[in-house]
């Protein structure tokens, strides 16, 4: 099993602590079947000098601690068969952006050492972390691999998005209760998904056709049972135009009511 990136530097006051869903993401992407699929799709050794040799842009939305993106970056050779991927992390939480940058850089350093015996001595380069709502800041058609572990828990209300400036304030002057309130709010953003736990995911699904790179873009989205993933997959297939959705990872029965699945969304070109 490939090692989980270290997140000991992360303060989980406002950031989701890696849990079963995060680990399902790691296991799914590193599974032999999914790695083989991705490696074939992003084949770096293609002999024709076409677009397929271009470095894939790998974006995670809602990175939190950065454990998923850090894992993908550090294990790019296993997952994509190439190290020249371009990992970009997006989160509405400034702390999560900073944490992810560190998690990814540490994980790459840890896994990709100057080992002469390795066939590939290239190193993956973590691009940046950006604060944004879902894919709003990304150029249309630019994303090759999109990953989203959403706030999927059904909740009465959907928490509002943070305002532009509220994360610029200095925490040190905050009262204990004010800090507690603020921390609870930011944590609620990591799990509370509103109606059916789908309000944020639905917004993301709408963005997918515009965000993914024509020809090779693919998205991975996590769902819990209450999100009704079977219906979601049907909905995606109904987009027509070759859109596909398939379950490529699941947490099995032991997780009880919170059974989790990861769905791959892509377009089959004729």
């Amino acid at each position, binding site marked *: 099993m490939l090692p989980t990136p270290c997140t000991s530097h992360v303060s989980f006051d406002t950031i989701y602590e890696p849990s079963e869903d995060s680990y399902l993401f790691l296991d799914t992407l590193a599974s032999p079947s999914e790695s083989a699929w991705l490696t074939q799709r992003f084949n770096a050794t293609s002999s024709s000098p076409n677009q397929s040799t*271009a*470095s894939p842009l790998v974006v995670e939305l809602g990175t939190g601690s950065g454990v998923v993106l850090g894992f993908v970056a550090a294990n790019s050779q296993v997952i994509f068969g190439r190290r020249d991927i*371009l990992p970009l992390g997006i989160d509405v939480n400034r702390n999560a952006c900073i944490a992810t940058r560190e998690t990814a850089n540490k994980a790459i350093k840890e896994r990709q050492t100057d080992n002469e015996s390795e066939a590939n001595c290239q190193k993956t380069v973590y691009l940046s972390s*950006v604060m944004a709502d879902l894919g*709003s800041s990304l150029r*249309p058609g630019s994303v090759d691999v999109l990953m989203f572990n959403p706030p999927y828990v059904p909740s009465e209300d959907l928490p509002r998005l943070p305002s532009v400036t509220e994360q610029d304030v200095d925490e040190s002057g905050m009262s204990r209760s004010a800090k507690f309130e603020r921390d609870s709010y930011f944590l609620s953003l990591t799990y509370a998904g509103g109606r059916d736990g789908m309000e944020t995911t639905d917004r993301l699904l709408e963005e997918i056709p515009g965000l993914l790179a024509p020809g090779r873009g693919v998205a991975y989205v996590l769902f819990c049972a209450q999100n009704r993933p079977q219906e979601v997959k049907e909905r995606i297939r109904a987009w027509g135009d070759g859109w596909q959705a398939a379950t490529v990872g699941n947490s099995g029965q032991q997780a009880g009511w919170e059974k989790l699945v990861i769905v791959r969304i892509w377009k089959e070109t004729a």
Partner: protein
Amino acid sequence: MKLITANFLTCAVKGCKASPASFPLHFRDAELELQELDFQPDFIRNIVPRIDWHALQIMANELGFPKILDKKPEGDELKDEQILKELHRLLLETHINEGKLTCGNCGHEYLIKEGIANFLLPSHLV
């Protein structure tokens, strides 16, 4: 934030997406830092096809870098170590720590702090 990141970013305002003026975003008051990184020629060769060359010319110019090639390097130019090294420096080693990115269409400014660009929008623009 590595300079190459801006190659993938655009204005977060919905109405700007369709406007050519919303890309590239324009750096203002940028505080740059050079962070050394191992030079990997093959890596740069595979990044070049991803780069919008015209946008990179504009950004390099706005950040005060020497003029880059008029055209995206191709063929033998991609074997020229000097060309690749300059791109490596510009795209991967150049970090923007503080400053702003502004939209050429709506004029909105996105602040960059500690290398993190903030694309959250005020409520009246969402």
